[in-house]
C-alpha cells in the first residue's frame, strides 16, 4: 500500500482548494436539518431520537454523494493527470483505494458536523445513544456504498455530468428496490420470497435496521461488500480503459 497516504492527502486537500467543499458542507447540513424538521415533523413525533434525521439519508445521499464523487476519475481523465497518476510506481488498487478513502473521509467530515443534532435530542429528552451510534455507522457505510458506485461511474467517462447522472440512476434503483410502495407492488406480482429477495439488494432495507438501533452483522456485511465489489469493478474498468 505504498503511496496510499500521499494520494489520500492530496485528494482530500483537493476538496478544500476550491469553495466547492464549503458549499457542499453547508448544503449537506442545511438539507439534513431541513428535512428532519420540516419534512420529518421532528417535534410532532415527540421522540428524543434521531430516527427521523436518518430517515432522509438514503434520499439525500442520492444527490449529495454523486456530487462529491463524480470528479474522482472524470477530472483526472479530462485533465490528463490520469496518465501521471497511473505511471507512478503504485498499484492501481492503491490509487483507487486512496481516492475512495479521501472522498469518504470528506463525507465523514460533513456527517460529523451534524453533531449538534445529538445535543438537541439529548437536550429535549432522555435520548438513547445506541440507535444514534448505529444510525451514524449505518449512514456512513451507506454513504460509502453510494460513493463506491459513483467512483465506478466516474471512471467510465471524462464528463462529470454523465458520471453524476449515471450514479444517481444506479443508486436510485438500489434505493427504490427497498421502498415500501414498490415492495407492495412486487408482492402482488411475485411470491413473497422473490420480492423479499429483491428488497435485500436495496440500501434502504439494510439501513432501516441500523437506523432503528438494530446492528445486524448481515447489514454491515452488505454495505461492506457493495463497497468492495464496486471498487473492484472500478479497478477493472481502469485497468482495461486507462485511456479513453
Amino acid at each position, binding site marked *: 500500500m505504498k*503511496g496510499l*497516504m500521499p494520494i489520500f492527502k492530496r485528494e482530500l486537500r483537493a476538496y478544500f482548494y476550491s469553495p466547492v467543499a464549503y458549499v457542499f458542507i453547508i448544503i449537506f447540513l442545511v438539507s439534513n436539518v431541513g428535512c428532519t424538521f420540516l419534512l420529518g415533523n421532528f417535534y410532532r413525533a415527540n421522540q428524543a431520537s434521531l430516527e427521523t434525521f436518518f430517515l432522509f439519508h438514503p434520499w439525500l445521499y442520492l444527490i449529495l454523494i454523486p456530487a462529491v464523487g463524480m470528479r474522482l476519475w472524470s477530472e483526472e481523465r479530462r485533465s*490528463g493527470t490520469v496518465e501521471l497518476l497511473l*505511471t507512478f*510506481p503504485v498499484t492501481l488498487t492503491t490509487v483507487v483505494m486512496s481516492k475512495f478513502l479521501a472522498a469518504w473521509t470528506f463525507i465523514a467530515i460533513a456527517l460529523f458536523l451534524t453533531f449538534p443534532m445529538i445535543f438537541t435530542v439529548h437536550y429535549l429528552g432522555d435520548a438513547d445513544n445506541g440507535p444514534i451510534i448505529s444510525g451514524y455507522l449505518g449512514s456512513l457505510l451507506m454513504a460509502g456504498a453510494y460513493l463506491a458506485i459513483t467512483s465506478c461511474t466516474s471512471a467510465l467517462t471524462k464528463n462529470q455530468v454523465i458520471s453524476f447522472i449515471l450514479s444517481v440512476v444506479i443508486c436510485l434503483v438500489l434505493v427504490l428496490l427497498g421502498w415500501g410502495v414498490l415492495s407492495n407492488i412486487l408482492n402482488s406480482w411475485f411470491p413473497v420470497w422473490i420480492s423479499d429477495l429483491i428488497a435485500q439488494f436495496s440500501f434502504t432495507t439494510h439501513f432501516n435496521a441500523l437506523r432503528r438501533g438494530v446492528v445486524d452483522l448481515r447489514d454491515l456485511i452488505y454495505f461492506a461488500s457493495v463497497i468492495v465489489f464496486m471498487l473492484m469493478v472500478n479497478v477493472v474498468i481502469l485497468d482495461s480503459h486507462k485511456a479513453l
Partner: protein
Amino acid sequence: MIQVDKLSKVFGSYRAVDDISFEVGQGEILGFLGPNGAGKSTTMKMITCFLPPTSGTAKVCGYDILENSIQVRENIGYLPESAPSYHEMLVEEFLRFTGEVRGLSGNDLQKHVDRVLEQTALQDVKDQLIDTLSKGYRQRTCLAQSLLSDPPVLILDEPTDGLDPNQKHEVRTLIKRISEKRTILVSTHILEEVEAVCSRAIIIAKGKIVADGTPNQLLARSSYHNAISLRVKSLESESLLAKLQQIANVQTVQLLDAGKNDTASFQLFPQQGKSILNEVEQFIQNERLHVEQLYSEKGRLDEVFRKVTLNV
C-alpha cells in the same frame, strides 16, 4: 537499459504500433521521430506501463513491463505528451506530492525538490498556483516531476512543445546535461531538436520503424548530403551551368537564381553522396570565378524525414 521487443498495439482495426523492436543503451539520448499519429506516444505509453501492449513486450533496467510493472515505473521518469499536472496545486506542493508518491520523504524529499526546481529554473514560481502559469512553465513543472526521483531512465514525450525559443534551448541543454549515466527516450517532431540533442534517432511511420541511426547517418541519406551551394559573379549563367555539369562526381546541377546583381546561384548534387568540395574548388580556380558564397551541406533532415515517412 530499454529493450523493446516486437511491441504492437492495435486499437480496434487500427494498428497504432506495428511490431517495433529497438534498444537504448546507457548514456544514449534516443530521438523518437515521426509524423503525427505515427505511434510515438503509444509506444511511450506502453513502455511506461500506462497502456498494455497487444503483443510483444519491453524491458526497462531488466524489468519486464508486463511482469514487474511497479519496478519498471520506479526506474522511469515520465513526461506525458500534454504535460499534465494538478492545476489547483502550487508548483512546489505538486513536486512534493509526486516525490512522496515515489517514496521520498523528509530532508531527502526537500533536497530533491530543490534540485529539480533549480534544474528547470522554476524557483521564482515555486509558490505559484500551477493554474496561473503559462504553458512553458507548466511544461517545465511536469518535466521537473519526471526528474524528481533521479531515475535512470527518462521518457519525455515532446518536452519542448509549446516553449519559446529560449526555453527550448534551456530544456535541450538540460536534457544534454542530465544525460550522463542516464538513458533518455525523447519524442519530437522538431527535426532541429534531433541534431541538437540526440545521439541516435529512430524515425517511425504508421507504427513501423523506417530509419534508425545517428543524426549524421540519417543526414547521409539526404540527397543534399555533401551537396554544394555556390554563388558567383557571372553574366553567362547558362554556359557556366553546362561547365559545372562536367565536373567529376557531380550528378546534377540546379540553377537556382540568375541575373540578380550579375550573380548566379547553383546547387551541385554529388554522385552517391561523395565529397566534391575539392573538385569544385579546382574548377573555381581554373575558371577564375569570383565567388560570393560557397558552402557544403551535411544534408537536410527534413528531406530524409519526408522521404522515409511518405513512402510507407
